[in-house]
Protein backbone atom coordinates (compact mmCIF):
# COMPACT_ATOMS: atom_id res chain seq x y z
CA UNK A 1 0.00 0.00 0.00
CA UNK A 2 1.46 3.36 -0.97
CA UNK A 3 1.37 6.43 1.21
CA UNK A 4 -1.13 9.15 0.40
CA UNK A 5 0.32 11.57 2.94
CA UNK A 6 3.94 11.82 3.92
CA UNK A 7 5.13 14.46 6.34
CA UNK A 8 8.90 14.67 6.28
CA UNK A 9 10.52 16.59 9.10
CA UNK A 10 7.82 19.27 8.87
CA UNK A 11 8.38 22.35 10.97
CA UNK A 12 6.74 25.71 11.41
CA UNK A 13 7.32 28.48 13.90
CA UNK A 14 5.90 31.92 14.59
CA UNK A 15 8.82 34.00 15.80
CA UNK A 16 10.15 32.20 18.86
CA UNK A 17 7.09 30.00 19.19
CA UNK A 18 7.58 26.59 17.62
CA UNK A 19 4.18 25.40 16.43
CA UNK A 20 5.30 22.25 14.64
CA UNK A 21 8.63 20.79 15.63
CA UNK A 22 10.10 18.65 12.85
CA UNK A 23 7.44 15.98 12.70
CA UNK A 24 7.37 12.99 10.39
CA UNK A 25 4.53 10.58 9.77
CA UNK A 26 2.73 8.91 6.91
CA UNK A 27 -0.82 7.90 6.07
CA UNK A 28 -1.39 4.99 3.72
CA UNK A 29 -3.92 5.19 0.91
CA UNK A 30 -7.38 4.36 2.18
CA UNK A 31 -6.32 4.70 5.80
CA UNK A 32 -7.87 6.91 8.46
CA UNK A 33 -5.31 8.49 10.73
CA UNK A 34 -6.61 10.26 13.81
CA UNK A 35 -4.39 13.14 14.83
CA UNK A 36 -5.01 13.82 18.49
CA UNK A 37 -3.73 16.52 20.75
CA UNK A 38 -4.82 19.39 22.94
CA UNK A 39 -5.41 22.91 21.65
CA UNK A 40 -2.15 24.48 20.57
CA UNK A 41 -0.47 21.14 19.98
CA UNK A 42 0.19 22.07 16.35
CA UNK A 43 -2.46 19.92 14.64
CA UNK A 44 -4.09 22.70 12.63
CA UNK A 45 -0.74 24.16 11.58
CA UNK A 46 0.25 20.69 10.41
CA UNK A 47 -2.90 20.41 8.31
CA UNK A 48 -2.35 23.90 6.90
CA UNK A 49 1.10 22.83 5.71
CA UNK A 50 -0.23 19.56 4.30
CA UNK A 51 -3.02 21.31 2.39
CA UNK A 52 -0.84 24.04 0.93
CA UNK A 53 -2.27 26.87 3.02
CA UNK A 54 1.09 27.43 4.68
CA UNK A 55 4.56 26.79 3.40
CA UNK A 56 6.64 24.77 5.87
CA UNK A 57 9.63 26.55 7.38
CA UNK A 58 11.45 23.22 7.21
CA UNK A 59 10.81 19.76 5.84
CA UNK A 60 8.28 18.90 3.19
CA UNK A 61 4.81 17.52 2.66
CA UNK A 62 4.29 14.89 0.01
CA UNK A 63 0.73 14.09 -0.99
CA UNK A 64 -0.18 11.37 -3.48
CA UNK A 65 3.49 11.15 -4.37
CA UNK A 66 3.82 14.85 -5.20
CA UNK A 67 5.75 17.50 -3.33
CA UNK A 68 3.05 19.89 -2.11
CA UNK A 69 5.26 22.97 -2.41
CA UNK A 70 5.94 22.29 -6.09
CA UNK A 71 2.56 20.90 -7.11
CA UNK A 72 0.17 22.82 -4.91
CA UNK A 73 -2.50 23.40 -7.53
CA UNK A 74 -2.45 19.83 -8.81
CA UNK A 75 -2.57 18.30 -5.34
CA UNK A 76 -5.31 20.67 -4.17
CA UNK A 77 -7.50 19.34 -6.96
CA UNK A 78 -7.31 15.92 -5.30
CA UNK A 79 -7.91 16.87 -1.70
CA UNK A 80 -10.86 17.98 0.39
CA UNK A 81 -10.61 20.03 3.54
CA UNK A 82 -13.17 20.53 6.26
CA UNK A 83 -12.06 23.23 8.64
CA UNK A 84 -12.72 23.42 12.34
CA UNK A 85 -14.31 26.86 12.09
CA UNK A 86 -17.36 27.17 9.87
CA UNK A 87 -16.26 29.11 6.83
CA UNK A 88 -19.20 29.00 4.49
CA UNK A 89 -20.70 31.89 2.58
CA UNK A 90 -23.53 32.47 4.99
CA UNK A 91 -25.50 34.82 2.76
CA UNK A 92 -25.62 32.18 0.06
CA UNK A 93 -27.72 29.02 0.10
CA UNK A 94 -26.29 25.53 0.49
CA UNK A 95 -26.84 24.93 -3.21
CA UNK A 96 -25.05 28.13 -4.15
CA UNK A 97 -22.15 27.31 -1.84
CA UNK A 98 -21.69 23.87 -3.35
CA UNK A 99 -22.10 25.02 -6.94
CA UNK A 100 -19.58 27.80 -6.41
CA UNK A 101 -16.96 25.42 -5.05
CA UNK A 102 -17.72 22.92 -7.79
CA UNK A 103 -16.82 25.62 -10.31
CA UNK A 104 -13.54 26.27 -8.50
CA UNK A 105 -12.73 22.57 -8.82
CA UNK A 106 -13.62 22.70 -12.50
CA UNK A 107 -16.50 20.27 -12.06
CA UNK A 108 -18.94 20.68 -14.91
CA UNK A 109 -21.60 18.14 -14.13
CA UNK A 110 -22.43 18.06 -10.49
CA UNK A 111 -25.52 16.91 -8.66
CA UNK A 112 -25.55 19.25 -5.69
CA UNK A 113 -28.99 18.07 -4.62
CA UNK A 114 -27.82 14.47 -4.33
CA UNK A 115 -24.89 15.51 -2.18
CA UNK A 116 -27.12 17.63 0.04
CA UNK A 117 -29.49 14.72 0.40
CA UNK A 118 -26.57 12.55 1.44
CA UNK A 119 -25.74 14.92 4.30
CA UNK A 120 -29.38 15.33 5.24
CA UNK A 121 -29.84 18.88 4.04
CA UNK A 122 -32.44 18.20 1.38
CA UNK A 123 -35.43 20.45 1.81
CA UNK A 124 -33.29 23.33 3.10
CA UNK A 125 -30.99 23.56 0.11
CA UNK A 126 -32.27 26.93 -1.04
CA UNK A 127 -32.24 28.58 2.38
CA UNK A 128 -29.43 30.91 3.28
CA UNK A 129 -26.74 29.20 5.34
CA UNK A 130 -27.05 31.90 8.01
CA UNK A 131 -30.41 30.36 8.93
CA UNK A 132 -28.88 26.89 9.56
CA UNK A 133 -28.10 25.32 12.91
CA UNK A 134 -24.49 24.54 13.77
CA UNK A 135 -25.01 20.90 12.95
CA UNK A 136 -26.45 21.72 9.53
CA UNK A 137 -23.56 24.05 8.77
CA UNK A 138 -21.09 21.39 9.77
CA UNK A 139 -22.79 18.84 7.53
CA UNK A 140 -22.60 21.33 4.70
CA UNK A 141 -18.90 21.86 5.44
CA UNK A 142 -18.37 18.12 5.13
CA UNK A 143 -20.40 18.05 1.92
CA UNK A 144 -18.25 20.85 0.52
CA UNK A 145 -15.07 18.97 1.40
CA UNK A 146 -16.11 15.92 -0.61
CA UNK A 147 -17.49 17.80 -3.58
CA UNK A 148 -14.55 16.74 -5.78
CA UNK A 149 -14.52 13.11 -4.56
CA UNK A 150 -11.13 13.76 -2.95
CA UNK A 151 -8.46 11.12 -2.72
CA UNK A 152 -7.27 12.69 0.52
CA UNK A 153 -9.66 14.19 3.03
CA UNK A 154 -8.63 16.46 5.89
CA UNK A 155 -11.22 16.82 8.62
CA UNK A 156 -10.49 19.20 11.46
CA UNK A 157 -12.83 18.55 14.40
CA UNK A 158 -15.75 17.67 12.11
CA UNK A 159 -18.11 16.79 14.97
CA UNK A 160 -17.03 19.34 17.59
CA UNK A 161 -19.98 20.77 19.48
CA UNK A 162 -22.59 18.83 17.52
CA UNK A 163 -25.54 16.88 18.83
CA UNK A 164 -25.19 13.06 18.78
CA UNK A 165 -27.39 12.71 15.71
CA UNK A 166 -25.39 15.19 13.61
CA UNK A 167 -22.13 13.68 14.84
CA UNK A 168 -23.26 10.22 13.87
CA UNK A 169 -24.31 11.28 10.39
CA UNK A 170 -20.91 12.89 9.84
CA UNK A 171 -19.15 9.75 11.05
CA UNK A 172 -21.19 7.74 8.57
CA UNK A 173 -20.01 10.00 5.77
CA UNK A 174 -16.40 9.58 6.89
CA UNK A 175 -16.81 5.83 6.78
CA UNK A 176 -18.40 5.98 3.34
CA UNK A 177 -15.55 8.10 2.07
CA UNK A 178 -13.04 5.64 3.39
CA UNK A 179 -14.95 2.79 1.75
CA UNK A 180 -14.79 4.73 -1.49
CA UNK A 181 -11.02 4.67 -1.12
CA UNK A 182 -10.29 8.08 0.31
CA UNK A 183 -7.47 8.60 2.76
CA UNK A 184 -8.58 10.56 5.81
CA UNK A 185 -6.60 12.65 8.26
CA UNK A 186 -8.97 13.22 11.14
CA UNK A 187 -8.21 15.85 13.77
CA UNK A 188 -10.34 15.43 16.82
CA UNK A 189 -10.63 15.86 20.55
CA UNK A 190 -13.19 13.11 20.70
CA UNK A 191 -11.35 10.00 21.83
CA UNK A 192 -14.29 7.73 21.26
CA UNK A 193 -14.65 9.02 17.73
CA UNK A 194 -10.94 8.58 17.05
CA UNK A 195 -11.05 5.11 18.51
CA UNK A 196 -14.06 4.07 16.42
CA UNK A 197 -13.00 5.58 13.12
CA UNK A 198 -9.22 5.58 13.00
CA UNK A 199 -7.04 2.79 11.72
CA UNK A 200 -4.18 4.46 13.52
CA UNK A 201 -3.87 7.46 15.78
CA UNK A 202 -1.03 9.92 16.22
CA UNK A 203 -0.64 11.81 19.47
CA UNK A 204 0.64 15.34 19.07
CA UNK A 205 1.89 17.44 21.94
CA UNK A 206 3.79 20.74 21.91
CA UNK A 207 4.47 20.50 18.20
CA UNK A 208 5.80 16.97 18.27
CA UNK A 209 4.34 13.59 17.38
CA UNK A 210 4.80 11.59 20.56
CA UNK A 211 3.19 8.31 19.51
CA UNK A 212 1.71 6.76 16.37
CA UNK A 213 0.06 3.39 16.30
CA UNK A 214 -3.25 1.60 16.12
CA UNK A 215 -5.57 2.27 19.05
CA UNK A 216 -5.28 -1.39 20.00
CA UNK A 217 -1.49 -1.38 20.06
CA UNK A 218 -1.39 1.85 22.02
CA UNK A 219 -3.72 0.40 24.59
CA UNK A 220 -1.62 -2.72 24.72
CA UNK A 221 1.54 -0.77 25.11
CA UNK A 222 0.47 1.95 27.48
CA UNK A 223 -2.68 0.82 29.21
CA UNK A 224 -3.56 -2.71 30.29
CA UNK A 225 -7.03 -4.14 30.10
CA UNK A 226 -8.45 -5.25 33.39
CA UNK A 227 -11.21 -7.44 34.72
CA UNK A 228 -13.16 -5.55 37.34
CA UNK A 229 -15.18 -7.60 39.78
CA UNK A 230 -17.31 -6.98 42.82
CA UNK A 231 -17.15 -9.76 45.37
CA UNK A 232 -19.21 -10.34 48.48
CA UNK A 233 -17.19 -10.65 51.71
CA UNK A 234 -18.17 -12.88 54.63
CA UNK A 235 -20.04 -10.09 56.34
CA UNK A 236 -21.99 -9.41 53.11
CA UNK A 237 -20.21 -6.24 52.08
CA UNK A 238 -19.17 -5.72 48.46
CA UNK A 239 -15.47 -5.39 47.71
CA UNK A 240 -13.61 -4.55 44.48
CA UNK A 241 -11.21 -6.93 42.79
CA UNK A 242 -9.10 -6.31 39.68
CA UNK A 243 -7.29 -8.72 37.40
CA UNK A 244 -4.88 -7.32 34.82
CA UNK A 245 -5.56 -8.86 31.42
CA UNK A 246 -3.22 -9.93 28.64
CA UNK A 247 -0.43 -11.14 30.93
CA UNK A 248 0.93 -14.65 31.50
CA UNK A 249 -0.68 -14.72 34.93
CA UNK A 250 -4.11 -13.61 33.74
CA UNK A 251 -5.67 -17.06 33.33
CA UNK A 252 -4.52 -18.23 36.72
CA UNK A 253 -5.65 -15.02 38.42
CA UNK A 254 -9.11 -15.27 36.85
CA UNK A 255 -9.50 -18.87 37.89
CA UNK A 256 -8.46 -18.01 41.43
CA UNK A 257 -10.88 -15.12 41.56
CA UNK A 258 -13.85 -17.27 40.67
CA UNK A 259 -12.68 -20.20 42.80
CA UNK A 260 -11.91 -18.32 45.99
CA UNK A 261 -14.27 -15.37 45.93
CA UNK A 262 -18.01 -14.98 45.76
CA UNK A 263 -18.18 -12.93 42.59
CA UNK A 264 -21.30 -10.75 42.36
CA UNK A 265 -20.58 -8.71 39.22
CA UNK A 266 -17.80 -8.75 36.68
CA UNK A 267 -16.88 -6.58 33.68
CA UNK A 268 -13.84 -5.82 31.62
CA UNK A 269 -12.32 -2.37 31.45
CA UNK A 270 -9.65 -1.00 29.17
CA UNK A 271 -7.68 2.22 29.06
CA UNK A 272 -9.08 4.97 26.87
CA UNK A 273 -6.98 6.85 24.39
CA UNK A 274 -7.24 9.83 26.70
CA UNK A 275 -5.75 7.79 29.54
CA UNK A 276 -2.91 6.83 27.26
CA UNK A 277 -2.40 10.37 26.07
CA UNK A 278 -2.16 11.55 29.68
CA UNK A 279 0.21 8.75 30.47
CA UNK A 280 2.48 9.69 27.58
CA UNK A 281 2.36 13.46 27.80
CA UNK A 282 1.37 14.13 31.37
CA UNK A 283 -1.48 16.38 30.23
CA UNK A 284 -5.09 15.98 29.13
CA UNK A 285 -6.38 16.36 25.60
CA UNK A 286 -8.57 19.28 26.52
CA UNK A 287 -5.78 21.10 28.34
Amino acid at each position, binding site marked *: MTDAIVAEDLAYWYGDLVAVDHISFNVAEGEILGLLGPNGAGKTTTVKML*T*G*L*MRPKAGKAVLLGLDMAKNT*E*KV*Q*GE*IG*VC*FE*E*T*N*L*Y*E*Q*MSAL*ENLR*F*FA*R*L*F*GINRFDANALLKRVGLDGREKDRVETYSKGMKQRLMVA*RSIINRPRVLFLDEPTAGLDPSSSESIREIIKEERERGATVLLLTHDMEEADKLSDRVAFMNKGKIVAVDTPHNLKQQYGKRALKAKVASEDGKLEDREVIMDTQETDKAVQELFAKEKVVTVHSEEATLEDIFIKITGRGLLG
Partner: protein
Amino acid sequence: MKWRTIGAIVSKDLSLYFRNRFIALITVLGTVAFLIVYFVMPSTTPVTDVGLYAPVVPSAFVEEASENIDFVMVDSEAVLREAVTQSDYIAGIVLPADIMEKFDKGEKPDVKIYFSPETTEESREIISLFIKGLAYRQTGQIASFNEKEIVLGTDLLGQDIPLRERMRPLFAVMLLMIEMFGLANLITVEVERGTVQGLLVTPMRVRELFAAKGITGIILSFVPAALFMALVGGMNNQPLVILTAMLLGAVMVTGISFLVAALSKDFMSILGWVFVVLIIMAVPAVGIMMPGTITGWAKVIPSYYLVLPVHQAAHYGSGWGDVWKYMLALAGFDLAFISLGIIALRRKFQ
Protein backbone atom coordinates in the same frame (compact mmCIF):
# COMPACT_ATOMS: atom_id res chain seq x y z
CA MET B 1 -5.07 32.17 -15.59
CA LYS B 2 -8.23 30.10 -15.26
CA TRP B 3 -10.94 32.51 -16.35
CA ARG B 4 -13.66 30.12 -15.29
CA THR B 5 -12.39 30.30 -11.73
CA ILE B 6 -12.04 34.08 -11.89
CA GLY B 7 -15.54 34.35 -13.33
CA ALA B 8 -16.94 32.18 -10.54
CA ILE B 9 -15.39 34.38 -7.84
CA VAL B 10 -16.43 37.65 -9.53
CA SER B 11 -19.97 36.37 -9.92
CA LYS B 12 -20.05 35.21 -6.29
CA ASP B 13 -18.61 38.53 -5.03
CA LEU B 14 -21.08 40.64 -6.98
CA SER B 15 -23.92 38.49 -5.72
CA LEU B 16 -22.73 38.81 -2.10
CA TYR B 17 -22.11 42.52 -2.56
CA PHE B 18 -25.73 43.20 -3.34
CA ARG B 19 -26.93 40.83 -0.63
CA ASN B 20 -25.24 43.08 1.92
CA ARG B 21 -28.06 45.56 2.32
CA PHE B 22 -25.92 48.32 3.77
CA ILE B 23 -23.32 48.20 1.03
CA ALA B 24 -25.92 47.86 -1.71
CA LEU B 25 -27.84 50.75 -0.20
CA ILE B 26 -24.90 53.13 -0.08
CA THR B 27 -24.05 52.25 -3.67
CA VAL B 28 -27.53 52.89 -5.01
CA LEU B 29 -28.34 55.81 -2.71
CA GLY B 30 -24.92 57.33 -3.32
CA THR B 31 -25.44 57.32 -7.08
CA VAL B 32 -29.00 58.61 -6.78
CA ALA B 33 -28.04 61.27 -4.22
CA PHE B 34 -25.24 62.59 -6.36
CA LEU B 35 -27.59 62.71 -9.34
CA ILE B 36 -30.20 64.61 -7.31
CA VAL B 37 -27.63 67.06 -5.94
CA TYR B 38 -26.32 67.58 -9.44
CA PHE B 39 -29.70 68.29 -10.98
CA VAL B 40 -30.96 70.60 -8.22
CA MET B 41 -27.87 72.77 -8.47
CA PRO B 42 -28.10 75.86 -10.72
CA SER B 43 -27.24 75.13 -14.31
CA THR B 44 -26.10 78.69 -14.92
CA THR B 45 -23.02 80.46 -13.70
CA PRO B 46 -23.63 82.91 -10.88
CA VAL B 47 -23.40 86.63 -11.52
CA THR B 48 -20.33 88.04 -9.87
CA ASP B 49 -20.26 91.51 -8.36
CA VAL B 50 -17.09 93.49 -8.93
CA GLY B 51 -16.61 96.79 -7.15
CA LEU B 52 -15.54 99.77 -9.26
CA TYR B 53 -14.20 103.13 -8.17
CA ALA B 54 -13.74 105.39 -11.16
CA PRO B 55 -13.85 109.19 -11.03
CA VAL B 56 -14.19 109.00 -14.79
CA VAL B 57 -15.88 105.91 -16.20
CA PRO B 58 -14.87 104.87 -19.71
CA SER B 59 -17.82 104.06 -21.90
CA ALA B 60 -16.74 100.44 -22.33
CA PHE B 61 -17.09 99.98 -18.58
CA VAL B 62 -20.59 101.40 -18.58
CA GLU B 63 -21.96 99.03 -21.20
CA GLU B 64 -23.00 95.54 -20.32
CA ALA B 65 -19.65 93.82 -20.68
CA SER B 66 -20.45 90.35 -19.44
CA GLU B 67 -23.57 88.54 -18.38
CA ASN B 68 -21.63 87.05 -15.52
CA ILE B 69 -19.99 90.16 -14.10
CA ASP B 70 -21.78 93.19 -12.69
CA PHE B 71 -19.95 96.36 -11.77
CA VAL B 72 -21.03 98.05 -8.57
CA MET B 73 -19.90 101.67 -8.33
CA VAL B 74 -18.46 102.84 -5.01
CA ASP B 75 -17.63 106.33 -3.80
CA SER B 76 -13.99 106.04 -2.90
CA GLU B 77 -11.00 103.77 -3.07
CA ALA B 78 -11.09 103.39 0.72
CA VAL B 79 -14.70 102.17 0.61
CA LEU B 80 -13.81 99.81 -2.19
CA ARG B 81 -10.87 98.37 -0.28
CA GLU B 82 -13.03 97.85 2.79
CA ALA B 83 -15.77 96.13 0.76
CA VAL B 84 -13.32 93.82 -0.96
CA THR B 85 -11.68 93.01 2.36
CA GLN B 86 -15.09 92.06 3.70
CA SER B 87 -15.60 89.88 0.57
CA ASP B 88 -18.59 91.93 -0.51
CA TYR B 89 -17.10 91.84 -3.98
CA ILE B 90 -14.93 89.26 -5.62
CA ALA B 91 -12.63 92.10 -6.77
CA GLY B 92 -12.36 95.85 -6.71
CA ILE B 93 -11.11 97.94 -9.61
CA VAL B 94 -9.70 101.43 -9.27
CA LEU B 95 -9.51 103.41 -12.46
CA PRO B 96 -7.37 106.56 -12.31
CA ALA B 97 -8.94 109.98 -12.92
CA ASP B 98 -6.72 110.50 -15.97
CA ILE B 99 -7.57 107.19 -17.58
CA MET B 100 -9.19 108.67 -20.68
CA GLU B 101 -6.41 111.18 -21.20
CA LYS B 102 -3.84 108.39 -21.08
CA PHE B 103 -5.88 106.26 -23.43
CA ASP B 104 -6.07 109.17 -25.83
CA LYS B 105 -2.30 109.67 -25.65
CA GLY B 106 -1.68 105.96 -26.17
CA GLU B 107 -0.17 105.64 -22.73
CA LYS B 108 -0.93 102.85 -20.28
CA PRO B 109 -2.85 104.03 -17.29
CA ASP B 110 -2.29 102.52 -13.85
CA VAL B 111 -5.22 100.31 -12.95
CA LYS B 112 -5.41 98.82 -9.51
CA ILE B 113 -7.29 95.61 -8.93
CA TYR B 114 -8.00 94.56 -5.38
CA PHE B 115 -8.83 90.95 -4.64
CA SER B 116 -10.17 89.59 -1.41
CA PRO B 117 -8.10 86.85 0.23
CA GLU B 118 -10.76 84.28 -0.72
CA THR B 119 -10.73 85.20 -4.40
CA THR B 120 -9.60 82.16 -6.30
CA GLU B 121 -6.67 82.14 -8.64
CA GLU B 122 -8.89 81.38 -11.58
CA SER B 123 -11.25 84.24 -10.70
CA ARG B 124 -8.31 86.62 -10.48
CA GLU B 125 -7.24 85.59 -13.95
CA ILE B 126 -10.76 86.03 -15.28
CA ILE B 127 -11.10 89.51 -13.76
CA SER B 128 -7.68 90.55 -14.98
CA LEU B 129 -8.43 89.34 -18.51
CA PHE B 130 -11.84 90.93 -18.36
CA ILE B 131 -10.32 94.35 -17.55
CA LYS B 132 -7.84 93.95 -20.36
CA GLY B 133 -10.73 93.10 -22.66
CA LEU B 134 -12.60 96.24 -21.68
CA ALA B 135 -9.48 98.34 -22.16
CA TYR B 136 -9.11 96.86 -25.61
CA ARG B 137 -12.72 97.63 -26.40
CA GLN B 138 -12.15 101.20 -25.25
CA THR B 139 -8.88 101.88 -27.05
CA GLY B 140 -8.76 99.35 -29.81
CA GLN B 141 -5.29 98.43 -28.64
CA ILE B 142 -4.08 95.19 -27.14
CA ALA B 143 -2.87 95.60 -23.62
CA SER B 144 0.51 94.21 -22.71
CA PHE B 145 0.30 90.73 -21.41
CA ASN B 146 2.14 87.60 -22.11
CA GLU B 147 0.84 85.09 -24.63
CA LYS B 148 0.37 82.32 -22.14
CA GLU B 149 -2.00 84.38 -20.19
CA ILE B 150 -3.92 85.27 -23.29
CA VAL B 151 -4.45 81.59 -24.15
CA LEU B 152 -5.58 80.69 -20.69
CA GLY B 153 -7.72 83.79 -20.50
CA THR B 154 -9.35 83.12 -23.82
CA ASP B 155 -10.16 79.59 -22.75
CA LEU B 156 -11.63 80.60 -19.45
CA LEU B 157 -13.19 83.92 -20.30
CA GLY B 158 -16.69 83.40 -21.56
CA GLN B 159 -16.48 79.74 -20.68
CA ASP B 160 -17.45 79.97 -17.08
CA ILE B 161 -18.56 76.58 -15.88
CA PRO B 162 -21.73 76.28 -13.85
CA LEU B 163 -21.07 75.06 -10.33
CA ARG B 164 -22.94 71.83 -10.79
CA GLU B 165 -20.84 70.98 -13.83
CA ARG B 166 -17.73 71.86 -11.90
CA MET B 167 -18.86 69.37 -9.30
CA ARG B 168 -19.09 66.50 -11.75
CA PRO B 169 -15.49 65.36 -11.26
CA LEU B 170 -15.97 65.57 -7.50
CA PHE B 171 -19.10 63.44 -7.66
CA ALA B 172 -17.53 60.98 -10.07
CA VAL B 173 -14.43 60.61 -7.91
CA MET B 174 -16.56 60.21 -4.81
CA LEU B 175 -18.59 57.50 -6.53
CA LEU B 176 -15.41 55.74 -7.57
CA MET B 177 -13.91 56.03 -4.12
CA ILE B 178 -17.00 55.11 -2.14
CA GLU B 179 -16.76 51.60 -3.54
CA MET B 180 -13.70 51.13 -1.38
CA PHE B 181 -16.18 50.28 1.39
CA GLY B 182 -17.69 47.49 -0.65
CA LEU B 183 -14.57 45.84 -1.97
CA ALA B 184 -12.54 46.21 1.22
CA ASN B 185 -15.48 44.77 3.12
CA LEU B 186 -15.81 41.82 0.73
CA ILE B 187 -12.15 40.96 1.26
CA THR B 188 -12.10 41.59 5.01
CA VAL B 189 -15.16 39.43 5.49
CA GLU B 190 -13.46 36.63 3.52
CA VAL B 191 -10.53 36.77 5.92
CA GLU B 192 -12.60 37.38 9.05
CA ARG B 193 -14.94 34.44 8.38
CA GLY B 194 -12.17 32.20 7.09
CA THR B 195 -13.80 31.69 3.69
CA VAL B 196 -10.55 32.71 2.04
CA GLN B 197 -8.99 29.55 3.49
CA GLY B 198 -11.75 27.57 1.84
CA LEU B 199 -10.78 29.18 -1.46
CA LEU B 200 -7.06 28.70 -1.00
CA VAL B 201 -7.33 24.93 -0.59
CA THR B 202 -9.01 24.57 -3.96
CA PRO B 203 -6.94 24.27 -7.14
CA MET B 204 -7.05 28.02 -7.58
CA ARG B 205 -3.92 30.11 -7.70
CA VAL B 206 -3.58 33.11 -5.46
CA ARG B 207 -3.07 35.33 -8.48
CA GLU B 208 -6.46 34.20 -9.79
CA LEU B 209 -8.00 35.22 -6.50
CA PHE B 210 -6.41 38.66 -6.78
CA ALA B 211 -7.46 38.96 -10.41
CA ALA B 212 -11.04 38.13 -9.43
CA LYS B 213 -11.06 40.61 -6.56
CA GLY B 214 -9.50 43.22 -8.82
CA ILE B 215 -12.10 42.74 -11.54
CA THR B 216 -14.88 42.89 -8.95
CA GLY B 217 -13.44 46.12 -7.53
CA ILE B 218 -13.09 47.72 -10.94
CA ILE B 219 -16.66 46.82 -11.90
CA LEU B 220 -18.06 48.06 -8.59
CA SER B 221 -16.30 51.41 -8.72
CA PHE B 222 -16.24 52.10 -12.45
CA VAL B 223 -19.86 51.32 -13.31
CA PRO B 224 -21.62 53.77 -10.94
CA ALA B 225 -19.15 56.56 -11.72
CA ALA B 226 -19.41 56.04 -15.49
CA LEU B 227 -23.18 55.80 -15.23
CA PHE B 228 -23.29 59.07 -13.30
CA MET B 229 -21.07 60.87 -15.81
CA ALA B 230 -23.18 59.58 -18.69
CA LEU B 231 -26.45 60.64 -17.04
CA VAL B 232 -25.26 64.15 -16.24
CA GLY B 233 -23.80 64.71 -19.67
CA GLY B 234 -20.25 64.57 -18.41
CA MET B 235 -19.18 62.50 -21.36
CA ASN B 236 -20.45 64.71 -24.14
CA ASN B 237 -16.86 65.76 -24.71
CA GLN B 238 -14.06 63.25 -25.18
CA PRO B 239 -15.93 60.22 -23.79
CA LEU B 240 -13.06 57.85 -24.45
CA VAL B 241 -10.61 60.01 -22.53
CA ILE B 242 -13.01 60.31 -19.63
CA LEU B 243 -13.83 56.60 -19.59
CA THR B 244 -10.15 55.70 -19.70
CA ALA B 245 -9.35 58.08 -16.85
CA MET B 246 -12.17 56.67 -14.78
CA LEU B 247 -11.12 53.10 -15.56
CA LEU B 248 -7.61 53.92 -14.37
CA GLY B 249 -9.21 55.57 -11.36
CA ALA B 250 -11.18 52.39 -10.65
CA VAL B 251 -7.95 50.39 -10.76
CA MET B 252 -6.43 52.80 -8.25
CA VAL B 253 -9.48 52.48 -6.01
CA THR B 254 -9.15 48.70 -6.20
CA GLY B 255 -5.48 48.88 -5.16
CA ILE B 256 -6.34 51.16 -2.25
CA SER B 257 -9.18 48.81 -1.27
CA PHE B 258 -6.68 45.94 -1.13
CA LEU B 259 -4.53 48.03 1.22
CA VAL B 260 -7.50 49.04 3.35
CA ALA B 261 -8.64 45.40 3.54
CA ALA B 262 -5.15 44.34 4.58
CA LEU B 263 -5.10 46.96 7.33
CA SER B 264 -8.64 46.39 8.57
CA LYS B 265 -9.99 43.75 10.88
CA ASP B 266 -13.67 44.57 10.67
CA PHE B 267 -16.15 46.94 9.10
CA MET B 268 -15.52 49.70 11.65
CA SER B 269 -11.83 49.80 10.84
CA ILE B 270 -12.72 49.81 7.13
CA LEU B 271 -14.94 52.84 7.77
CA GLY B 272 -12.11 54.62 9.54
CA TRP B 273 -9.54 54.00 6.84
CA VAL B 274 -11.88 54.71 3.95
CA PHE B 275 -13.01 58.04 5.40
CA VAL B 276 -9.40 59.15 5.75
CA VAL B 277 -8.66 58.13 2.17
CA LEU B 278 -11.88 59.70 0.88
CA ILE B 279 -11.12 63.05 2.47
CA ILE B 280 -7.60 63.11 1.06
CA MET B 281 -8.66 61.94 -2.38
CA ALA B 282 -11.49 64.46 -2.59
CA VAL B 283 -9.13 67.43 -2.18
CA PRO B 284 -8.11 67.74 -5.85
CA ALA B 285 -11.75 67.45 -6.91
CA VAL B 286 -12.67 70.25 -4.51
CA GLY B 287 -9.91 72.26 -6.11
CA ILE B 288 -11.60 71.85 -9.46
CA MET B 289 -14.92 72.84 -7.98
CA MET B 290 -13.43 75.90 -6.32
CA PRO B 291 -10.41 76.92 -8.40
CA GLY B 292 -7.52 78.42 -6.52
CA THR B 293 -8.30 76.71 -3.24
CA ILE B 294 -5.50 74.23 -3.74
CA THR B 295 -1.91 74.82 -4.73
CA GLY B 296 0.92 72.72 -6.08
CA TRP B 297 0.94 70.37 -3.11
CA ALA B 298 -2.25 68.78 -4.40
CA LYS B 299 -0.17 67.19 -7.12
CA VAL B 300 1.12 64.65 -4.62
CA ILE B 301 -2.42 63.35 -4.14
CA PRO B 302 -2.98 60.53 -6.64
CA SER B 303 -6.57 61.52 -7.37
CA TYR B 304 -5.27 64.81 -8.81
CA TYR B 305 -4.22 62.83 -11.89
CA LEU B 306 -7.71 61.39 -12.16
CA VAL B 307 -9.67 64.56 -11.57
CA LEU B 308 -7.67 66.78 -13.86
CA PRO B 309 -8.05 64.79 -17.10
CA VAL B 310 -11.74 64.20 -16.36
CA HIS B 311 -12.23 67.93 -15.70
CA GLN B 312 -10.26 69.09 -18.69
CA ALA B 313 -11.80 66.59 -21.07
CA ALA B 314 -15.34 67.11 -19.84
CA HIS B 315 -15.23 70.89 -19.54
CA TYR B 316 -12.69 72.04 -22.09
CA GLY B 317 -12.72 69.16 -24.53
CA SER B 318 -9.05 68.33 -23.89
CA GLY B 319 -7.89 65.34 -25.88
CA TRP B 320 -5.23 62.66 -25.45
CA GLY B 321 -2.47 65.08 -26.35
CA ASP B 322 -3.38 67.33 -23.43
CA VAL B 323 -3.96 64.73 -20.76
CA TRP B 324 -1.67 61.82 -21.53
CA LYS B 325 0.84 62.93 -18.89
CA TYR B 326 -1.80 62.80 -16.19
CA MET B 327 -2.99 59.41 -17.41
CA LEU B 328 0.55 58.10 -17.29
CA ALA B 329 0.98 59.35 -13.73
CA LEU B 330 -2.35 57.77 -12.83
CA ALA B 331 -1.27 54.46 -14.34
CA GLY B 332 1.90 54.70 -12.25
CA PHE B 333 -0.14 55.18 -9.10
CA ASP B 334 -2.33 52.23 -10.18
CA LEU B 335 0.70 49.99 -10.44
CA ALA B 336 2.02 51.14 -7.08
CA PHE B 337 -1.27 50.72 -5.22
CA ILE B 338 -2.13 47.37 -6.80
CA SER B 339 1.36 46.00 -6.07
CA LEU B 340 1.37 47.25 -2.48
CA GLY B 341 -2.18 46.03 -1.99
CA ILE B 342 -1.38 42.53 -3.24
CA ILE B 343 1.75 42.32 -1.08
CA ALA B 344 -0.18 43.46 2.00
CA LEU B 345 -3.09 41.11 1.33
CA ARG B 346 -0.79 38.15 0.70
CA ARG B 347 0.70 38.71 4.12
CA LYS B 348 -2.76 38.91 5.61
CA PHE B 349 -3.90 35.72 3.88
CA GLN B 350 -0.81 33.94 5.21
